[in-house]
């Protein structure tokens, strides 16, 4: 008899048009002192299974079959039993620490409330216990901090509080749903280490749900791989990662960007198990003819010189105080040469996106200059000259769900910049231009007549790329273009970007927090921290011999899929 036994679990979502099977015949077990990873792409049903264990499935979802036994007590769909177990025997850690704590209650109140609900303790004892818990999860000076509100804690600290809440009633099982997805690499490392330590010290069973194979490799003992609500493979983590059997699993493992070497292209596997060697070389011919061939010149294209940006959103009427100003960028300088791909890497708040906004003139720098082909972009004298350069810088955004206008058809989204830049173009030419663009991003021409909401995240990102290419740009800024996508889709989009760069001689500024992705995509990399440049170097030199302390730390802390080998 295992500690947790989930067997033949079926969960269905009944909607008006169809019944979605979010979980089909899911069976797995978990022992004490073991960490189980549930991994899968979005929509694979991994969160649904976790929510089913604590009977928190949103309507119209329904468990239609199966059993969940914790310590040999059947607790599937039995709300009375679950009430006593949830919080006491099972602790839950949510994805986003910004929203999983009530902002109006002090940390003390939240901990004491949970403790007193399940354990019969006096308030003083509960407080003493809370302080010990906070100390255990690594919060310094807990006697003082317990009286603070959630907004006074940073993201990583808040996630520690959430973990403290989860273990406050000495549960036997902790379910962590994407516990580190919203956190930076260095904090992710600490939180995962904390979970691992707690598992050993308290002899807990832990379920970690994640889409990140690096996290799986670093923390888990066993893995369940899910796809479309079914378990496609399960077993020891080492076996799954080194010797995957099913096609789904192979595709998942192969799509993960390796952290220890640079590869040319990602290998892709079709659902039938064949290798896809999709290449868009022949498709770009039309575009090249249209654009005129471009020579790679290796000359400096963009110069970012001593830029400082202070965000000061003071009142328009009252003059704001001089203090408390946030320096988003502090004396940042770098050059980008034509034809190269230049990477910007850093944690949240390091100013990566601000740089993209300054280059695209969405915000103005406080001081410093940006030169594009030796023309200053922010000098008011250059307004007329700048007109010539409009459209030469384009951008691909992070969130594919908000970067396309939901009220426009795909063809209108792509055609708009074409019409804008070539005023006297006739409709036939527009159409052939749009066809060329939709072809090279690897989508069918039928999709032009549809609206963005009919496409998946990866397809939307391709539409976004087609729109960006419509103005014939020379510099393409990619701001976290794949962070909202699943790994296999990420691999496809990254391959596409590489192909386009080769064929069209694009210069790419690639912004990401994901070191393995940056390593695969970039020739040179800049490491940013709190608005300051730490290091600029060629990719392989940077990864093999980092000079700056912060770079060393980042590379050391990133979850590595190879770590298990």
């Amino acid at each position, binding site marked *: 008899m295992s500690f947790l036994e989930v067997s033949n679990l079926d969960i269905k979502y009944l*909607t*008006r048009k169809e019944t979605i099977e979010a979980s089909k015949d899911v069976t797995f077990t978990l022992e004490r002192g073991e960490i189980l990873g549930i991994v899968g792409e979005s929509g694979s049903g991994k969160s649904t299974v976790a929510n089913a264990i604590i009977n928190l499935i949103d*309507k*119209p979802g329904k468990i239609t079959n199966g059993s969940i036994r914790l310590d040999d007590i059947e607790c599937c769909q039995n709300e009375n039993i679950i009430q006593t177990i949830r919080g006491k025997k099972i602790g839950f850690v949510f994805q986003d620490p910004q929203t999983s704590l009530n902002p109006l209650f002090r940390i003390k109140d939240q901990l004491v409330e949970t403790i007193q609900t399940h354990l019969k303790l006096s308030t003083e004892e509960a407080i003493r216990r809370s302080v010990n818990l906070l100390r255990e999860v690594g919060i310094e000076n807990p006697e003082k901090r317990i009286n603070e509100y959630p907004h006074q804690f940073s993201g990583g600290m808040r996630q520690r509080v959430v973990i403290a809440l989860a273990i406050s009633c000495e549960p036997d099982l902790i379910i962590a749903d994407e516990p580190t997805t919203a956190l930076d690499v260095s904090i992710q490392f600490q939180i995962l280490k904390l979970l691992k330590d707690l598992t050993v010290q308290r002899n807990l069973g832990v379920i970690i749900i994640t889409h990140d194979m690096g996290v799986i490799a670093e923390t888990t003992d066993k893995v369940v791989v899910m796809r479309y609500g079914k378990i496609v493979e399960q077993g020891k983590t080492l076996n799954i990662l080194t010797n995957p059997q099913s096609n789904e699993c192979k595709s998942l493992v192969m799509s993960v960007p390796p952290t220890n070497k640079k590869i040319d292209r990602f290998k892709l596997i079709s659902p039938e198990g064949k290798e896809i060697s999709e290449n868009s070389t022949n498709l770009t011919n039309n575009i090249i003819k249209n654009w005129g061939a471009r020579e790679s010149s290796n000359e400096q294209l963009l110069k970012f010189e001593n830029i400082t940006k202070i965000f000061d959103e003071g009142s*328009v*009427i009252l003059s704001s105080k001089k203090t408390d100003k946030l320096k988003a960028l502090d004396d940042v300088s770098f050059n980008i040469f034509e034809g190269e791909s230049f990477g910007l890497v850093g944690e949240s708040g390091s100013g990566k996106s601000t740089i993209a906004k300054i280059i*695209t*003139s*969405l915000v103005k720098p406080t001081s410093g200059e940006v030169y594009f082909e030796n023309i200053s972009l922010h000098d008011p004298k250059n307004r007329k000259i700048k007109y010539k350069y*409009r*459209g030469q*810088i*384009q*951008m691909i*955004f*992070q*969130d594919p769900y*908000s*970067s*396309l*206008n*939901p*009220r426009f058809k795909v063809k209108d989204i792509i055609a*708009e*910049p074409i019409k*804008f830049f070539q005023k006297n173009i006739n409709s036939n030419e527009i159409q052939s231009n749009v066809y060329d663009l939709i072809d090279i991003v690897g989508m069918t021409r039928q999709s032009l007549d549809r609206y963005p909401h009919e496409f998946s995240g990866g397809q939307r990102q391709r539409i*976004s790329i087609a*729109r*960006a290419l419509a*103005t014939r740009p020379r510099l393409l800024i990619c701001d976290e273009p794949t962070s909202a996508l699943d790994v296999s889709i990420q691999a496809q989009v990254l391959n596409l970007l590489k192909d386009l760069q080769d064929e069209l001689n694009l210069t790419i500024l690639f912004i990401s927090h994901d070191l393995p992705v940056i390593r695969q995509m970039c020739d040179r990399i800049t490491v940013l921290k709190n608005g300051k440049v730490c290091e600029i170097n060629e990719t392989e030199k940077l990864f093999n011999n980092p000079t700056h302390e912060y770079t060393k730390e980042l590379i050391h802390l990133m979850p590595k899929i190879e770590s298990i080998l």
Partner: protein
Amino acid sequence: MIAKTLHKIIDSDIGYSFLKSKIAIISAIVFLIILFCSIFAELVSPYDPFNPLNVSLMDAFTPPVWSEGGNINFLLGTDQQGRDMLSTMIYGSRISLIVGFASILFAMILGVFLGVTSGYLGGRYEIIVMRFTDVQLTIPSILMALLVDGIARGFISKSLHDDMAIYVLIFAIGISEWPQFARVTRAATLVEKNKEYISASKIIGLSNIVIMFKHILPNILRPVLVIATIGLALAIITESTLSFLGVGVPPTTPSLGTLIRFGNNFLFSGEWWITFFPAIFLVVLALSINLLGDWMRDTLNPKLKTR
């Protein structure tokens, strides 16, 4: 083709929720009947109450057909001039609806324009516009309409009063309703303008006007549609109130409010039907529009949306 479009509408989420909601169906049917009757008043109503040939003072104060002394020719009785109540109400509702639609259209264009521009452009312009709406919202809409009406009367020569009355009324109601639109559209614009597709449009180099009215506007029409519907009922009621107070449309082309005012004089002398039926008619009209608006707000609000 038509069948296909119809099928698409019924199959959409909005169509589905419409067919699920009995209240929405009933109020839509009631509203459409009233709308149809008022548009085709010449065909629908038994008499043309404004043609002196049809009106005889001999028929004045005929009670409804089911009471003593009723006349089968006048289903709901007649007023003090011998006009058929049913016909006057149908013609009156036409005036009420015209004023309602026109004034809400006016308020919508003004409010949406100011809301989108102030939300998108920001800065001093936004502050000034929004303080204007704040001030406007402190003045009760009836008072505002009375004020506009009074001022307008001072400017327009007496002979033109009756002809211009309806336009003044439309302007007066419209000017008291626009702040609602401005507030809602500004809030929606603030949400939309931070989305990445707007950044993408800026990077392409599109002008502010194109971004505001081609990209943002279609995305914020849902809440505008909801307040326009609820505002329509409000505008019709405001019109009736003003007409009841005697500052609305002239008695020669009575609206529902004017009819109620006439009847009010006879309420205590036993001729209750002259004021009762227009009042009921007004209640039914406003209620059906309001219920439609409520349903629309629930359906189009993504926050309340459940599968």
